[in-house]
């Protein structure tokens, strides 16, 4: 594999470790730095570690899927939610909450399961709308993604409006994203799915470079374009649905991190995808520190932080840009 900016990669890895270390030290409960690894604070340490892992995995996954879809759809506005996954998963989650299945036995699994199922079904729906004859049009895919998302959002609002206050509160909390996880098995499943997906994406990244020149160019260069599209849509939907099913909707990471990373390592997806994974993980771990620390002990939903912190950061980058990265 040809990685273009090894120094930048090492720097990004170092930053990720630094952010993780900070996230172990800082939390809603003050623990003296020297004692965080002691037996007394074992429970707090485990809690923080699981949050760091989940935030890292979620950030890396969302950033990688954003990079994949921006290249594949040739659209700078593409993000992991553009194919309708978010609203599908959202509908699954609020249905689980409203129907009460999330309170039944095995409740900690039923909400993620419903969300995952909703996300995958919505994506399949979007995929089949845009499939014409043997081909999937990328413009059609974007449009049907937006339309399906709008329809499902209406349904989400309807389900939420029928809820009691308590259900409304947990729905809202889920819809705004969170990195709290109590079930280690669930964390393991999500981590495995996402790491596996990211690894395959890195191995196949060269094909995204070809795809970004346009489908006809790619066919003329001997790429099996339909197969590449299906593989990348499958990877994207699976890891996004997995992440969303436990974290809820964390916006902005998948949109801005690939743009920021492209400025650091250039447009070659073989460097862009691993670098986006590192940047996304670091960014979300840092945002999670803020989410825990601000207004503690309640905390703020992490999706709120990513939008409030990420937005201005991105605007500054856009203003400083020497030349457009996208045309």
């Amino acid at each position, binding site marked *: *594999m*040809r990685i273009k900016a090894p120094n930048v990669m090492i720097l990004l890895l170092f930053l990720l470790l630094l952010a993780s270390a900070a996230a172990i030290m800082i939390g809603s409960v003050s623990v003296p730095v020297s004692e965080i690894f002691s037996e007394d604070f074992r429970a707090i340490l485990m809690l923080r570690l699981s949050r760091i892992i989940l935030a890292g995995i979620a950030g890396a996954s969302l950033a990688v899927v954003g990079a994949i879809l921006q*290249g594949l759809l*040739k659209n*700078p506005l593409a993000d992991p939610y553009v194919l309708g996954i978010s609203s599908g998963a959202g509908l699954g989650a609020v249905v689980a909450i409203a129907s009460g299945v999330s309170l039944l036995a095995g409740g900690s699994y039923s909400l993620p399961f419903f969300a995952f199922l909703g996300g995958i079904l919505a994506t399949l729906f979007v995929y089949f709308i845009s499939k*014409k*004859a043997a081909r999937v049009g990328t413009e059609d895919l974007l449009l049907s993604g937006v339309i399906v998302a709008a329809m499902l959002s209406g349904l989400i609002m309807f389900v939420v409006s029928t809820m009691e206050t308590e259900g409304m509160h947990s729905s809202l909390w889920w819809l705004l994203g969170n990195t709290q996880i109590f079930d280690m098995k669930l964390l393991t499943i999500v981590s495995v799915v996402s790491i596996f997906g990211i690894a395959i994406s890195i*191995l*196949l990244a*060269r*094909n995204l*470079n*070809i795809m*970004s*020149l*346009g489908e*006809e*160019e790619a*066919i*003329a*260069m*001997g*790429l*099996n374009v339909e197969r590449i599209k299906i593989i990348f849509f499958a990877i994207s939907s699976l890891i996004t649905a997995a992440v969303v099913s436990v974290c809820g909707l964390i916006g902005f990471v998948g949109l801005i991190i690939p743009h920021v990373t*492209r400025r650091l390592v*250039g*447009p*070659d997806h*073989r460097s862009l995808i691993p670098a986006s994974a590192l940047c996304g993980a670091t960014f979300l771990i840092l945002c999670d520190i803020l989410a825990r620390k601000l207004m503690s002990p309640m905390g703020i939903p992490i999706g709120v932080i990513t939008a409030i912190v990420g937005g201005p950061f991105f605007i500054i980058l856009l203003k400083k840009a020497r*030349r457009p*990265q*996208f*045309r």
Partner: protein
Amino acid sequence: MAFLEIKDLKSGYSGRTIIDGVSFSIEKGEFVGIIGPNGAGKTTLLKTMTHILSPSGGGVFLEGKDVHRLNSTEMARRFAMVGQDLRSIFSFTVKDIVLMGRTPYIGLFNSETGDDLKMVDHVLELTDLKDFIERPIDELSAGERQRVLIAKALAQDPAILLLDEPTAHLDIGYQMEILELVRSLKRERQLTVVCVLHDLNLASQYCNRIILLDKGKVADFAPPKDILKYDTIEKIFGATVLVNEKALPGSPLVVPIARSRP
């Protein structure tokens, strides 16, 4: 057996037939031009000669083998396509782009090897792009970008080079430069060239034979001196022209004549 044979080819978009029963055959090493009015099906014909479009009838046969039965990499090792311009949304460098031409030789999960890099160095030399290797593609002029596209096509090491109006966005100097380059490559590498051209005078001077396409059918296929006649051009293009057959032997020059004087 002809080198490249197009038999009763039919093709179009979503049920609408654009080319309707096109047949012709080309010998190895020929430079064949395709001319014809807008909408005659020139680009559709080129796309159906590769896998970009599937034929709805007939076929394309290279040394007797049906091109549409080859898999995508086998096709791309034989045919390379050069379009009007490259619209990359990302600023890849010249070297990045030309390396992408090696795609049919690289496995799905693999990256370029030293041999691919060597091949790319060679085609960058041939196309005189050595000084541009690290330049972002979007900082080049249209003429330079066209050379990059030709280099990328050569990196595919094809037997047949298909060009779709490669000079459409270029000034007269670059138009000549690009076609001279294609002609010299054709000679050195025994390439077979099929090139859609709008400029009849360029077609006249660079092509061994010209296919005149009209309403999805081959109206004529012959050397330039037999195609570029004032009455043929008036009939097919609806343009009044003056044809000078004497200035360059074998290459008639076509001058459009305005309907009124200023």
